[in-house]
């Protein structure tokens, strides 16, 4: 136990640096996936096939490819096409795109759950589509999509560890490097696990609160 604490003291500063990158990566990917997911959802719900067909295709392709492979593609294949991304950039863009497909389906479910009569009532007041979306659809759809959004945040935090495979210096990667040079696997990965848990607890609490505040009765 004493050995564990002593090692922990040595390793923690490095691992905490990894935590900072993990948080940055998670927040960046969350923001990107939210924006893209919302865009896909709007396109998918559009009556114009010119918009809905590409959205369905994008969502299907993204969902059908493992996140790890998508990250490899971002980091190792794009340079061949003349696009150079840093490991962090490739990680957050890759995770953001990968998650945008799930976010899109989530947003779509929320928007489709709104009673069509609501849209007609708004239209009959003379509201234009953007105003109908902002004033009537989104405030009601948010009740449906916020609870799963909370879960998405937690999954995103954990899946950010996949970025270690393309050398992003986040928490898991930090752990791997220390473990490889010290062979203290037990100490290192116990710490890594505890740190992920510590970061996910506030999110779990937030997700629970969201569910309570917005969940359907």
């Amino acid at each position, binding site marked *: 136990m004493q050995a564990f604490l002593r090692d922990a003291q040595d390793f923690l500063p490095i691992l905490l640096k990894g935590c900072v990158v993990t948080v940055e990566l998670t927040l960046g990917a969350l923001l990107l996936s939210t924006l893209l997911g919302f865009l896909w959802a709007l396109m998918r719900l559009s009556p114009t096939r010119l918009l809905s067909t590409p959205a369905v295709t994008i969502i299907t392709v993204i969902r059908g490819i493992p996140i790890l492979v998508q990250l490899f593609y971002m980091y190792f294949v794009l340079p061949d096409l003349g696009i150079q991304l840093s490991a962090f950039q490739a990680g957050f863009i890759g995770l953001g795109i990968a998650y945008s497909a799930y976010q899109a389906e989530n947003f779509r479910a929320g928007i489709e759950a709104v*009673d069509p*009569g*609501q849209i*007609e*009532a*708004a*239209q*009959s*007041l*003379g*509201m*234009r589509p953007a*105003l109908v979306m902002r*004033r*009537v659809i989104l*405030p*009601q759809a948010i009740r449906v999509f916020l609870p799963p959004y909370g879960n998405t945040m937690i999954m995103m935090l954990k899946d950010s560890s996949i970025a270690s495979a393309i050398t992003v210096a986040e928490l898991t990667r930090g752990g791997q490097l220390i473990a490889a040079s010290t062979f203290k696997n037990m100490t290192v990965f116990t710490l890594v696990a505890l740190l992920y848990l510590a970061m996910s607890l506030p999110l779990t609490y937030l997700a629970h609160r969201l569910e309570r505040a917005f969940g359907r009765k």
Partner: protein
Amino acid sequence: MISVRNISKSFGEHRVLDRVSLEVAKGEVVCIIGPSGSGKSTLLRCINGLESYDAGEVSVGGNPVHRDSKSIHAIRSEVGMVFQRFNLFPHRTALENVMEGPVYVKGTPRAEARERAAALLVKVGLAQKLDAYPAKLSGGQQQRVAIARALAMQPKAILFDEPTSALDPELVGEVLRVMLTLAREGMTMVVVTHEMDFAAEVAHRVLFLDEGRIVEDGVPQQILTAPKHERTRDFLQRVLKPV
């Protein structure tokens, strides 16, 4: 005011409206009756462009109405609509429901919109319910808020789509009384309804619609007591004397 000329509409093979024409003058109250599936609601929804039509012409105040035209939003803001299922915004209070159109569509200053919305809710007998959410209101109260919401846009006409059909029988009267007041004040109204007493008392004209066609169009006394067509007689017999 409202002019419908020879409109037709089909859902697939099914012809919902078959060369229907209808003129509604300013201040006129027209009730549309007919069996379910006869096209009454579809006709009403064509008048404010919630529904498209295949042939013919609809205009309100001289402006053509087409669901997909650019001017449709402006036209809708001048024609109120009251729905069978109220369709109040559940996330807003009664007062906010009534303010929504004036503030966000017309750009009325909030304070002014609030004052007018409150006055309208008083008018429909809901002075005590300004801050209530729809879920806390009875069906009759919700429908009266919906009428106030339509009135808040100061419409040229209001379309009512079976406004009392979703109500418990004891709540029908309070909604009809509000509609009666509006009619007496000279509001142009087109009302799809099964309330024959209301039609008899309030309407200037009653239309009988069956299988997408206007079978009869005349003053209430004539249509309701001495219909010319057998179909109208059949329908009235069924409505007035349910077995």
